């Protein structure tokens, strides 16, 4: 009987895949906060209250200089926001954070209060990957949370395959790598070999604070502080871990699939 029961159940549930990106994006949890914004002009002279509270040393302020926050190093603990006396660092509640150049994650300069989102691929790469992207995932020295929330994109609620994006079981079948973790020295050889096994042209996506800059393990001699130490990175998606929506936005933005 259970076969009929489960068919009936499936019919009752209907399609559970979200409408996004045709419909509105699902809301972030209200306490999530989203990306950060740095209005360095609001900083009090010589104030560096945010600098020592940052667990990953993502914030620096040299004497006489503007404060600089590296969203690639940020693990979104919000300690700096609590410490800031002038509300120079704030949360935007914006889930969008993916950038194509590492320097686009540096906040605080004039006109650089927020991240500069990645532009869509164009030309040959867009033609090759825009409607069909096969990725090999390499997990290398993180905590498995970025992996978990990347896996979530494969569930029925998100259904990543409707965009032609799939994770494959061999680098030979892949167009590129999605890398997570701080790149432990113990994974350096495996990452190098996996990258070499992907046919060109190939791309690399670094997901999470670890893969961008080392995350909570930044500076440990056992890690290489991010994927760029071993392979060229084409897309950086910040977070600790990034919300699934942030990862999906990054992929779709880059493949030019958002303005449908």
């Amino acid at each position, binding site marked *: 009987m259970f076969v009929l029961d489960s068919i009936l159940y499936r019919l009752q549930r209907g399609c559970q895949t979200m409408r996004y990106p045709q419909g509105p994006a699902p809301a972030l949890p209200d306490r999530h906060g989203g990306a950060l914004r740095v209005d360095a002009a609001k900083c009090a002279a010589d104030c560096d209250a945010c600098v020592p509270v940052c667990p990953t040393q993502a914030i620096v302020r040299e004497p006489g200089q503007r404060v600089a926050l590296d969203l690639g190093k940020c693990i*979104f603990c919000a300690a700096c926001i609590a410490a800031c006396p002038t509300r120079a660092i704030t949360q935007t509640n914006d889930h969008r954070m993916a950038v194509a150049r590492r320097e686009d994650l540096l906040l605080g300069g004039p006109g650089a209060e927020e991240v500069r989102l990645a532009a869509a691929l164009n030309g040959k790469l867009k033609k090759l990957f825009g409607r069909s992207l096969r990725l090999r995932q390499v997990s290398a020295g993180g905590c498995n949370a970025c992996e978990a929330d990347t896996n979530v994109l494969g569930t029925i609620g998100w259904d990543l395959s409707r965009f032609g994006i799939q994770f494959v079981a061999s680098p030979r079948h892949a167009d590129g790598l999605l890398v997570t973790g701080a790149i432990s020295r113990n994974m350096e050889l495996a990452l190098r070999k996996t990258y070499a096994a992907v046919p060109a042209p190939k791309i690399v996506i670094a997901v999470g604070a670890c893969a961008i800059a080392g995350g909570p393990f930044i500076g440990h001699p056992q890690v290489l502080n991010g994927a760029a130490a071993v392979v060229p990175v084409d897309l950086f998606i910040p977070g600790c871990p990034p919300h699934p929506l942030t990862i999906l936005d990054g992929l779709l933005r880059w493949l030019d699939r958002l303005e449908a």
Partner: protein
Amino acid sequence: MNAAREFLWLANGASVPWADVPEWPAPEFVAVTAAELARGGRLCAWFAVPGQSGPRLAAVIAFDADNTLAVGRSAPVAKAYPSLTLRHPQAHLFEREVWEQHGLEPEGHPWLKPVRRQNGDHPAVGRFFEVAGGEIHEVSVGPVHAGIIEPGHFRFQCQGEEVLHLEIALGYQHRGVEESLPGGPHRATLSQMETVAGDTTIGHATAYATVLEALAGAEAPLRAQWLRAMALELERLANHTGDLGALAGDVAFLTTASACEKLRGDFLNLTALICGNRFGRGLVRPGGCAQDLDPARAAQLLKRLQAALADVAEATDWLWDANSVRARFELTGTVSNRQADEIGLVGVAARASGLVRDVRFDHPAGWHRFAQMPVSTWPDGDVFARARVRWLEIRRAGRFLGEQLAAPPEGGIDDAVGKPAPDTLAVALVEGWRGEICHVALTDGGGKFRRYKIVDPSFHNWPGLALALRRQAISDFPICNKSFSLSYCGFDL
């Protein structure tokens, strides 16, 4: 045995002066530890503490039925000591780890090789056990796996389809968590504790916070303990639901797989409702919790929880009813009760082999001193048993959350926690969703960490997976692996 030479007893979440921990010459220390284990003790941690005259061995032993822990240590060891593993296989990986970290050789250890040490650009995995013979073939898998999975290496010795022996080599996720802790706590320490195993953030952060509170002689406010206990069960619900879905997926039972994978996310979103992060980052901190659960939020939590629990019940009912699923789950990957006890399994894997072993029940600390739940066990030790224990725990976690939400304690959620006491040892056990998490901290004369030992439940349980594969078809590896659902990063540290 005279009183001065007994192990020092303490409760979970307590601290003792290091000077009070009894000390033996190394060979005698191994002998008394073996005697304690022989009379029903269980090795929670076995590690070494560096010192000027050489490293000392230290042991934390749990007597589950007596609800108590015991600690002891050796005098400085020059180079070698008689192996404990020969009498108690549960010490096997611990002794390898001590050898790797401090160079102390356990004499007579049957399989002394690295655990996670770096060797250039890969881990020093050492030589693998080999079966010889004309019909024998070897299958090598990993470190990079055919999915979105952490790295690890599996080496199977097979005769046809049948696995004679599986050896698991880890260390690929090693990122220096323990090595960074002496002299701490540092700025990044709490974040690193939250990411020892990212799917067990609440478990490890609670153990860490408990250790710091014990060292300072403080206790978190009751309401914070209540919040931590609820977050721990939400973590359990999410992961157990995800694992049931993944088990269903591995036997191509897609209806349950699809439903449970989505429902796992619904539970993660409940944790995010409390603290903003789906994995519970930033909720637990030494001295209490960072976020409170106001009445409106609690009401929403309860409503969404009940809906998700009803959906999980419906989705898993099909699983238990399906003959095709039972045929794959039953009598697959069996670990006997005796094996489980000998190798020191913890958590779901131990309880699925009929062992009554649950920190929440045996060593209650924090909120579990006031609110208990029954231990969920199943006798058979196979994939079905490990799935079934998860289902029992989902129901009991759901009921526990309902009860706790109905009676919230009042008061604040965060107290300032003082400086850690100098030359003090503290132990905290937490029943994470995989099993027992053990944190042991020892401070120096200035109250900084002199040694900090982390034992993730996976450290106890990986050898269980290797045993479960003996005489199994190699095609059953995925469901056996998923039924243990162990952490690579928690092991690799």
